[in-house]
């Protein structure tokens, strides 16, 4: 009888250990989000139609819609944190946010610190100047007389440093600052994604103009912390489903009024 009891105890312990081992697999981030019932998303709320505030002071925009969709799909509450070019990655890495949906380009430099999902938007960098400006291309700005404003930690910054290194560069934190500097004539040109530039030029009442030409073709992706590849795979599938179901096309059309270029989906 005693031997049977010991055997039973060992068997249960063995199962218990195995159960623990099985529970270790899986995504810690996803498990925590589901257990808390809340996902914290970092969005950039300083450039419509990507992200901004509506008349009630609530966040709205293309990225915000994606954040709501992600929360809805997981069945959890959403909390949006406003981040900029230089705070979004530290906020992710430190755990303040779970996902970056802040118009972040998935490039190889950042991929050393952040894992990216498949792209949910495609953008290229465009140049914006005052209306009637003599500067039309980035090559024109490669002189110390030309003043250019770029956001810290953006692909616009990388582009200007590479193609117009002699320009006088002014660093700002958010796109709205770039707009103010340009409108006040303190800078001659700004660089940001076409998605932001075209909207801003359109809204400026003729004061600002977007110069033709896309300088890059960038994949805009969701960003997640390294060390949880299962969560990134979930995000890949999530993005893919929104594309294949047509939701991405609908949402893009809602904010830009035109259809997006065809996006790749895997599932």
């Amino acid at each position: 009888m005693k031997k049977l009891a010991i055997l039973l105890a060992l068997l249960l312990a063995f199962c218990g250990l195995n159960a623990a081992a099985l529970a270790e697999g899986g995504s810690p981030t996803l498990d925590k989000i589901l257990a808390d019932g809340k996902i914290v998303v970092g969005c950039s709320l300083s450039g419509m139609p990507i992200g901004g505030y509506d008349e009630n002071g609530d966040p709205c925009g293309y990225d915000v819609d994606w954040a709501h969709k992600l929360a809805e799909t997981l069945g959890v509450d959403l909390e949006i944190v406003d981040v900029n070019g230089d705070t979004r990655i530290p906020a992710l890495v430190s755990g303040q946010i779970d996902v970056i949906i802040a118009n972040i380009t998935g490039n190889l430099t950042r991929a050393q610190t952040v894992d990216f999902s498949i792209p949910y938007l495609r953008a290229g960098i465009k140049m914006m100047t005052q209306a009637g400006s003599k500067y039309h291309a980035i090559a024109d700005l490669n002189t110390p007389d030309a003043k250019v404003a770029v956001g810290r930690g953006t692909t616009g910054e990388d582009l200007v440093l590479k193609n117009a290194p002699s320009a006088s560069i002014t660093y700002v934190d958010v796109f709205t600052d770039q707009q103010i500097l340009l409108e006040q004539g303190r800078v001659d040109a700004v660089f940001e994604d076409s998605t932001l530039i075209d909207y801003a030029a359109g809204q400026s009442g003729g004061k600002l103009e977007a110069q033709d030409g896309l300088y890059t073709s960038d994949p805009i992706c969701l960003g997640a912390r390294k060390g949880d590849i299962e969560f990134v795979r979930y995000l890949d599938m999530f993005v893919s489903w929104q594309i294949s179901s047509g939701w991405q096309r609908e949402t893009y059309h809602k904010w830009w009024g035109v259809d997006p270029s065809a996006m790749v989906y895997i599932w």
Partner: protein
Amino acid sequence: MSYTLNFRVLMQYSGLFIDGVLLTLKICAGSLIIGFLLGSILAVMRQSGSRLARGFAAVWVEVLRNTPFLIQLFFFYYGLPQLGIYVDALTVAIIALGINSSAPNCEVIRSGLMAVKTGYYEASAALGFSRFQTFLHVVLPISLRLAFKPLTSNFVNLVLTSSVCYGITLMEIMGVAKTVSARSNRPFEIYLILLAAYCLFTYAVSFIAKAIDRKIEIKL
């Protein structure tokens, strides 16, 4: 959660950091001069007989002491252009910071002026000094030597407040830190260095100030 400190990766940005420090020093030096001159003028105005001068100086000091510097800075840089007044960022920073520091400086110098007892005025009058001579040779030296220590503490505050100037696109030490942090993804190391740099600078200033103060202090 482990994190490996990596200061070496920041070495490539050392040129930018040095430029940032130099710009901070430039801003602080400029606003120190403006702040001291304005502060002295305001202190004299507040002690003067004219009610207009006293009132103007009082309002000036109260407004500046009761509003945040960041808002004063944004007002000058982003606000004035709407009225058609355009000034470049460095000039705005120096003037705004100088004006901001003129308020505490005024109060400090004023207390120095008030500490000169009537006995000194009587003695000067007895010696045949004019009012201006009294001010120049008796009152001013005494007040400034009394006010020196609090003035240096105001200067230290000025240096710490200058970090806010990155908000008007200046690449002083904080502006450089934010840009380098975005490029290198090392905010912990960068802001640690910044904290150490400010501490070092203010400690050095206080040390020098104490040494000078020991030589020039007077007991009334």
